[in-house]
């Protein structure tokens, strides 16, 4: 490390034409600023390049209709700041409580201008080092064995000014509009420029290409004034409440579905846009035809010579001519500025709009280049929230922690607890942690067991995709087994074509927790770290390879997993059985008895009572424990008492009775999610 730092300073001295920084960040959007915040907090040498004069330039333009669809919950009934972030999708992470989005807007779906203002404040209040009006137009590598990654990144801006960095964090987002080319595509207006004034659409018939939120947002805006709107795209509509993916069509935008399904007014069509062709007639109306008909023909011959589908098929769906065709096909990553040597390749299939990265967010082509923010969504596209502020604020933190360990010898932050706190630390996190909740099945809390399972180390929000390389990435040792805590939806529950409202969709009983459908915590136990091979070969539907044991905490209507019997008890039994120990709490009196009658003590007595921190318990509590048959009352001991010392028969019955009564009548409430 010393060498690397030395090398860095040499660069500054010798390469006078270069401005050197350890970390360069491209883009001062939410992800870039978030990364800058963590680097600043850690005291690192970094710079953010922003092509605009202010942060968040994407939000200055988009969404066109200015309504953000990320929720901004003012009230949750809780003061827990970590928990509240679960329902605050706009704030970035910081220590500054002024920088909570709810202080900027009272709207549940805030205006995009507020986001711009928020990002400006975030950058200025935290004094982040952002260099505005600097568009990076070229990135290349300079080999250097002393560099952190064997090369430096050379960035060139629009003024041909060069910057040299050891590590490059690309937070440029996806801002290049997706364009389809087909005959007649010149008649198509783009989402980025189309009018947002509904009056401009009065009495018009509109075709919208695309089926995402931007398409529906556009439709929503003009729904009331148009004759009708048709929407066409390759795949069926995916409703986010059915898929549990926030990138799919949100209910706030889906007014067109109403008119389509109720009155067959507006409509959705499926078809490949590549096959499409548009011809303009003399009146300026746009006719939909197929590329197939246009082949071998001379378009200049005029509309009359072109076969339209309805000529052959007189009930062809889009036979009516349109006044306007609008393209709302989303955006893609700007690959153009990276030199070939960086091998920034687009992903395959439906993630081709994103660059190829590893689950550690490092580029597959170049070591030391990390992709943050929306552009990093290929890791969890259509699964989790990594493409959105409320998700990537956590993955950005994870990347920062990886970098701290890799370049500065700062291991992943962790806390060591005695084993008696094991159940508690899991319960605490699954109830309040926001990172686990937003980035479900992507970020995981990791519990590393110490030898003999007397203590454990707790690591938060580690990317599970690189679980096999945990020791290398975190600087922590996982020799004695580990627990991985993630949140999951039920398998086969979410999907575009799934009925998510079927009866008995919610599981109420802890013993059927594995069939839980709604987001619920799942704990994987491994006796040893899974190998890279195991990670590579595990089933794609599963976030992780086969564990040695698994536990599901049963889904909860309130997402409050603190019920002593339904949530904590089964979890404790699971942990106990993995560790082969007894994790019950005991009152001091029980520990006293054990100390005199057993050569070994349970962990709770060993780590509490014996260290003079026994739980004495009030009179009432001990009385309750006696009544429950879990503590023997020796005060009124009758020597002729027939009951043997460990007998719990009568009280056991009592206990079962006490449990039995409240459970039955409440059964229907347990499954309240059904109703």
């Amino acid at each position, binding site marked *: 490390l010393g060498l690397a730092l030395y090398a860095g300073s040499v660069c500054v001295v010798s390469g006078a034409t270069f401005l050197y920084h350890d970390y360069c960040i491209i883009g001062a959007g939410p992800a870039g600023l978030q990364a800058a915040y963590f680097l600043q907090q850690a005291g690192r040498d970094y710079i953010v390049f922003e092509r605009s004069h202010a942060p968040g330039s994407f939000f200055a333009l988009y969404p066109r209709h200015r309504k953000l669809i990320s929720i901004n919950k003012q009230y949750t009934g*809780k*003061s*827990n*700041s*970590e928990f509240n972030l679960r329902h605050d999708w706009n704030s970035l992470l910081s220590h500054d409580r002024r920088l909570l989005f709810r202080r900027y807007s009272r709207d549940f779906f805030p205006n995009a201008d507020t986001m711009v203002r928020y990002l400006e404040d975030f950058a200025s209040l935290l004094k982040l080092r952002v260099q505005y009006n600097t568009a990076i137009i070229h990135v290349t590598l300079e080999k250097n064995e002393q560099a952190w990654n064997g090369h430096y990144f050379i960035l060139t801006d629009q003024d041909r000014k060069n910057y040299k960095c050891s590590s490059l964090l690309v937070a440029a987002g996806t801002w290049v509009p997706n364009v389809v080319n087909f005959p007649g595509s010149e008649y198509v207006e783009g989402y980025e420029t189309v009018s947002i004034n509904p009056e401009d659409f009065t009495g018009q018939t509109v075709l919208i290409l695309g089926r995402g939120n931007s398409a529906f947002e556009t439709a929503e805006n003009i729904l009331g004034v148009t004759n009708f709107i048709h929407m066409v795209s390759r795949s069926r509509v995916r409703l986010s409440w059915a898929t549990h993916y926030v990138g799919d069509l949100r209910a706030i935008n889906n007014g067109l579905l109403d008119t389509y399904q109720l009155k067959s007014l507006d409509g959705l069509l499926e078809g490949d846009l590549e096959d499409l062709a548009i011809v303009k007639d003399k009146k300026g109306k746009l006719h939909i035809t197929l590329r197939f008909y246009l082949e071998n023909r001379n378009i200049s011959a005029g509309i009359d010579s072109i076969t339209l589908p309805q000529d052959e098929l007189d009930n062809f769906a889009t036979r009516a001519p349109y006044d306007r065709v609008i393209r709302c096909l989303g955006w893609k990553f700007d690959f153009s500025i990276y030199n070939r040597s960086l091998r920034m390749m687009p992903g395959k299939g439906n993630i081709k709009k994103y660059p190829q990265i590893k689950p550690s967010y490092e580029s597959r082509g170049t070591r030391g280049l990390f992709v943050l923010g929306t552009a990093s969504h290929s890791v969890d596209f259509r699964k989790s929230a990594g493409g959105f502020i409320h998700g990537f604020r956590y993955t950005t933190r994870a990347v920062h922690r990886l970098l701290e360990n890799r370049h500065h010898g700062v291991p992943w932050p962790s806390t060591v*607890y*005695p084993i008696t*706190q094991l159940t*508690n630390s899991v*319960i*605490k996190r699954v*109830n309040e942690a926001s990172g686990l909740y937003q980035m479900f099945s992507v970020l995981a809390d990791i519990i590393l067991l110490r030898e003999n399972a007397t203590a454990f180390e707790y690591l938060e929000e580690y990317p599970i995709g690189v679980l096999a390389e945990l020791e290398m990435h975190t600087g922590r040792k996982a020799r004695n087994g580990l627990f991985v805590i993630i949140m999951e939806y039920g398998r086969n529950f979410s999907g575009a074509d799934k009925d998510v409202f079927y009866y008995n969709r919610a599981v109420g009983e*802890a*013993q*059927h927790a*594995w*069939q839980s459908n709604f987001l619920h915590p799942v704990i994987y136990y491994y006796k040893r770290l899974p190998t890279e091979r195991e990670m590579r070969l595990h089933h794609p539907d599963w976030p992780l390879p*086969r*564990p*040695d*044991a698994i*536990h*599901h905490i049963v889904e909860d209507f309130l997402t409050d997993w*603190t019920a002593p*019997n339904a949530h904590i*008890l089964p979890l404790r*039994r*699971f942990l106990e*059985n*993995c560790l*082969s120990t*007894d*994790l*019950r*709490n005991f*009152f*001091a*009196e029980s520990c*006293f008895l054990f100390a005199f*009658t057993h*050569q*070994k003590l349970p962990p709770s007595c060993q780590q509490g*009572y*014996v260290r*003079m*921190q*026994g*739980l*004495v*318990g*009030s009179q009432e*509590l001990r009385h*309750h*424990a006696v*009544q429950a048959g879990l503590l*023997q009352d*020796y005060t009124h001991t009758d020597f002729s008492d027939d009951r*043997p010392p460990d*007998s719990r*028969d009568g009280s056991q019955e009592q206990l079962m009775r006490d449990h039995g009564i409240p459970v039955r009548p409440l059964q229907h409430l347990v499954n309240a999610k059904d109703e």
Partner: protein
Amino acid sequence: MSAQKDRWVSSLVFLLFCASSIPRGGSASLQQEPSPQHYFSGLEAGRASLAFFSPSVSPGAQPFLEQIESSAEALQDYGVSVVKVNCPKEDVSRYCGKENALRKAFLFRGNRLIRDFPTDALFDVNSIVANVLFALLFNEVKYIETLADLENIENVLKGKSNMVFAYVPATGTAEHRAVMEAAFVYGTIHQFVLTTEAALLRATSHDDPDVSSAWLLFCHCQQATDPAQPCRRTALAQPLTLLNIHRHLKLMGAPLVTEVAEDPEKISTVHLQLGLPLVFILSQKETYEADRRTAEFVAWQLLGKAGVALLSRDLVDLNVLHRSNVALKTPDEGMPIQYLVLEDTDEVITLVEDKNKVKQIQEDEQEEEEEDEHEKENSNQDIQDDQVVEAVSRDKKRELPLEQILVLTEENFHSSLSEAARTVVLFYASWEAVSLAVLRSYSEVAAHLKGTPGVVLSRVNCWDWPGLCSQENVTQFPTMRIYKEGQQSVTYGGMWGTQELSSFILLSQVSCPLKLATMDEAEGYLRGEFPPELSSHHHTSLLGVFSTASSKAREAFEEAGNILSGHVRMGVYFEDDALALSRKYSVSPPALLLARSGGRSVEGIALSKGSVQDMVQMIRYELLDIFPEITVPNLPQYLQLGKPFLILFSAGDISQMESKEMLKVAKGRPQQAFVACWLNLKKTPVGHGILRTYFSTTPSLPVLLWVNLHAGGQVFKFPSEQSITEMNILSWLEKLQAGLEIPSSTLSEEDWKPPLPAYNFLQMMEPSVPELSPHPGDTPAQHPPKRPGGDTAGGDTPTREEPSQESTAEEAGSPGRDLRGTAPRLAARDKQGKRHSEL
């Protein structure tokens, strides 16, 4: 009943039919529907058969038919075949012709009709078997109605054979069947006598019997010689089932006392085989006759509960105490024989009875558990077995008096701390049981310290304010801190009891160590009068006396004070006249003055050089009592010494004499190798639990024990006949050390395993989600296709089919199964499997 008997006699009719024989199937099922001619021609002489006649179609007899069909198998065991005879329509013979006869079943021996039964008397399998055997065993089982009948039979049997006398509330019951089945086997050995008369039951049993339940007595008439005396009787204590009767008769048939001349570890008798303990009376040549009488006496008392053997010490080389006179061998595998010194035969009997009771209860529990398991596997899994969690959740409805306690939040935390000179803060999580248990004690502390000046109690709920808690570095719940203005906070590290918490808060009010300015203050401090804030608080006071030269030692002492702050009352005096103060207690500075019990005795200890840690250790050690009363809160301090305990259990306060003698023992050796202490069972009732674990019966109190808590775990009991004096104790301890004593008990070495298994979700998921198996598609050829039963993903109940169990076990890559409580599960599965096959 007797009227019935007459009817049988009257119904004895010869019936002769000549016909060809019908082939007899080997199966126990109902023989199917021969014609009457076929049936009667097939009857073999001496062979019993139960027949019923039915017209081809008779829907009314259907339920009866089912019962009789299912009893066929049971009756087959007793050589009785069950036949349904089909009456042709035109048949008007004796059995087929009469409407009446069609509602009866007929029992034949050979071709002789023994009895006919109305079908309503044969309501189930039990009644069929009981009634049929009752009829067949007419001679073997005597039915009586009066006490005179019983006495007559008894007198006839005296000196000849034994009698089994059973009372059943009604015939045709399961108990009746059990008695008849036993009579079938033992009828030639013992005379069976049966009654249904409740009056007879009352006459034969001592206390008020429950006439609704069956009752069986074994009457030892064979050995009875006195015609005036009734035979000795041994009642069957268990419910009347064939197995229990069989067991009882087996036990009654065993010799009363077995003479043994070999290693008792190798002995096995009927009793042990039947799961009963065996009591050895250790005998010597000189006392053989007396021992034999004792053994017989005990044997009679324990008849049916335990076996008794007479073990001759002269013939067997026993490595046990010479004083031992009784040994107990339990049927449990691997349990060592217990050698005891008992004074009374009653003790032997209570010992055995207690043991049996424990076992019985355990068995009952086990049975219950097993039943539960069948219904719903491990239903106990979801029953809370954490005493703290359960106690707190039972208490959750009670509102805690927390008005005295300030609620701190992220907003007001720092401002509140700066307002008071000293603030006590309890960090807790409102969902966590231990936190809530402590919060209850904390609320009591608040009530207790109400109005004490300068004490501000507050709390922070970390579930509401996680940022604040992590900022204050609170990683465990609960945590109690005292924040003092301008100083580092002090974290509490003691017992979570009301008293201990209050004492800590009070002691923390004064600085530790407290700097004393004048000689008067120092003297007042040692008397416990200064500072006035603590005068109500009775603690041992510790005063460090330093000359100006010993500043290094003083610094270490002050540092130690910081560490012990709140736990120890510490003062420091380093004025010019420090020398004079220390001289008074015949030490020279640097020195420690230790004032116990309000300064009545002050001890001077010279301070040697050492680190702060050594100093802390030394102070802690010095504060320990020489002969303490062990209580729940103070035990850990003595446990830390890692020494064996010489502990006197006393019903109340110990007598002055005992205290004096014990103190002598405790003080006797300067380098104490053990902790001498006592326990007041009134104050620490859990001590009863300890004694019950050590001894089967609670010994007479006081009892002095040597407990090797840290090495080996043996418990030795000081002989109760000796008085507790220093001399006796020391010589006993010498014997202990020399290994001449046998431990009365040994502390359990068991590890603390999970109390119950967890839900095996992995196993449940496997049938429905085969992709979870390791490396799917990696080596597909090696994985046999999953059973079709596996695709029950939508099923509401978790599938736990045998195949999945097997397949997991087979899969090499399924580590971790040993951790999941496999053994009990497999055992449970075996049982279940058996059930299935039975069905």
